[in-house]
């Protein structure tokens, strides 16, 4: 058997990929070695940062759940529905992904100054509240979850669902019994992506929910607040914590994905 000839094409691709990976490892490594483990541990023990960790975990989990609740029906509609204007709807649902995050926050702020917004706030106050943090995270996190669920449903054949219809199911029951169980890993991925995206959300939260310590402070807000008072160790500690959480989420999604 002859050896395959060396192809510089793959070498160039490998160099580009390796350089990009090294760049990221360099960035994270620089942050990690900038401060001692003691400083990092000390920073994570402060009352404000513990509050931010707790609030981030709670709001991201709520956002992930709400995003999934929206993404399953919308993703299904986009993947299976055949109706006029579908392409426009599909494009419109990407708007939160392409809008600058600050603009999303500004849109939320302005919306809740309208009559409709005031009426909603009579029931649930959003502006500068924890509910506002969740809403700001949701606006963007849900868009990513919808993309993921749409892709999931597009990859699942429609034929088993059609067979279920012939066996006596209604459309809803066929989707519930056949398609949703098959989509469970996609649902996990969608919720995880919404969760991870929400964890890093900063712009809309700053504009719409504010950056009040011990009230609407989530982890990205902590990084910004600590940097603004020159406490670099605390900012790095929180950043590294967020990196660790992001890696855990990514690894979970990969592990689940490989079992599909």
């Amino acid at each position, binding site marked *: 058997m002859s050896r395959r000839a060396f192809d510089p094409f793959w070498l160039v691709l490998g160099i580009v990929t390796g350089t990009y990976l090294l760049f990221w490892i360099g960035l994270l490594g620089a942050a990690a070695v900038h401060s001692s483990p003691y400083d990092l541990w000390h920073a994570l023990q402060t009352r404000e940062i513990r509050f931010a960790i707790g609030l981030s975990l709670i709001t991201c989990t709520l956002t992930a759940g709400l995003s999934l609740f929206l993404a399953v029906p919308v993703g299904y509609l986009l993947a299976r529905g055949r109706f006029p204007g579908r392409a426009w709807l599909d494009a419109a649902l990407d708007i939160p992904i392409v809008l600058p995050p600050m603009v999303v926050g500004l849109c939320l702020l302005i919306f809740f100054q309208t009559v409709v917004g005031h009426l909603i706030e009579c029931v649930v106050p959003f502006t500068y509240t924890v509910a506002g943090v969740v809403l700001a995270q949701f606006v963007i996190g849900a868009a990513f979850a919808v993309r993921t669920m749409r892709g999931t449903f597009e990859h699942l054949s429609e*034929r088993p669902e059609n067979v*279920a*219809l*012939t*066996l006596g199911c*209604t459309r809803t029951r066929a989707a519930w019994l056949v398609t949703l169980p098959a989509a469970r890993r996609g649902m996990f991925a969608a919720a995880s992506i919404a969760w991870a995206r929400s964890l890093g959300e900063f712009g809309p939260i700053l504009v719409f929910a504010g950056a009040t310590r011990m009230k609407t402070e989530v982890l990205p807000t902590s990084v910004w607040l600590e940097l603004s008072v020159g406490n670099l160790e605390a900012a790095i500690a929180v950043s590294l914590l967020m990196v660790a959480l992001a890696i855990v989420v990514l690894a979970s999604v990969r592990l689940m994905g490989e079992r599909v």
Partner: protein
Amino acid sequence: MIRFDNIGWQAGAFALKNISFTVPDGQYGVLMGRTGGGKTSLLEIICGLRRPTTGSIWLGDRQVTDLAPGERGLGYVPQDGALFPTMTVREHLGFALRVRRRPASEIARRVEELAGPLGIAALLDRRPPGLSGGERQRVALGRALAARPQVLLLDEPLSALDDDTREPLADLLHRVQRETAVTVLHVTHQRSEAARLADVLFRLDAGQVVESHLNEHLYV
């Protein structure tokens, strides 16, 4: 009985026009035609998965054109089996009865009744990814027969199988049809399948269906 009465259907430039033919009660009907000629679309029209633009469909003495797929009393075996990816073979065989909210004891009894003759009794706790092509088709057949339909629709059930698997499955289809007296419409482009199984043979050509005979020119 399966009766097409002046059925028309159109999708873009492709059209089926004035399709009228009948598979008599308890007979094994085979519909032949070229790949891409509309055979699967005709089965999906019977199932209620596609809506005809003209005409009516009769199953037995019922006009079913406007009924939902699940109200038509038929069993459907798509080309690749289209098994439910997360369910075990046992759950597949019990699915139609579960949907009808039958008692668990009745479902279990029916699963046992089906699994033996179909040769899948040893597979009841397996899921689709672990099944061979022939096993998948047997499971799809059992799932379609579970609620004792009047009519069984088979979409190229043997085409993806190797010779060693095709022969026993063709025997099984023949035996099941004779034992249950279900009215079958089996679509295929294989002359050998038609020769082996058909009581009554039809040919779909240029959007029209005509009754045919094996000694006439057929697509191979």
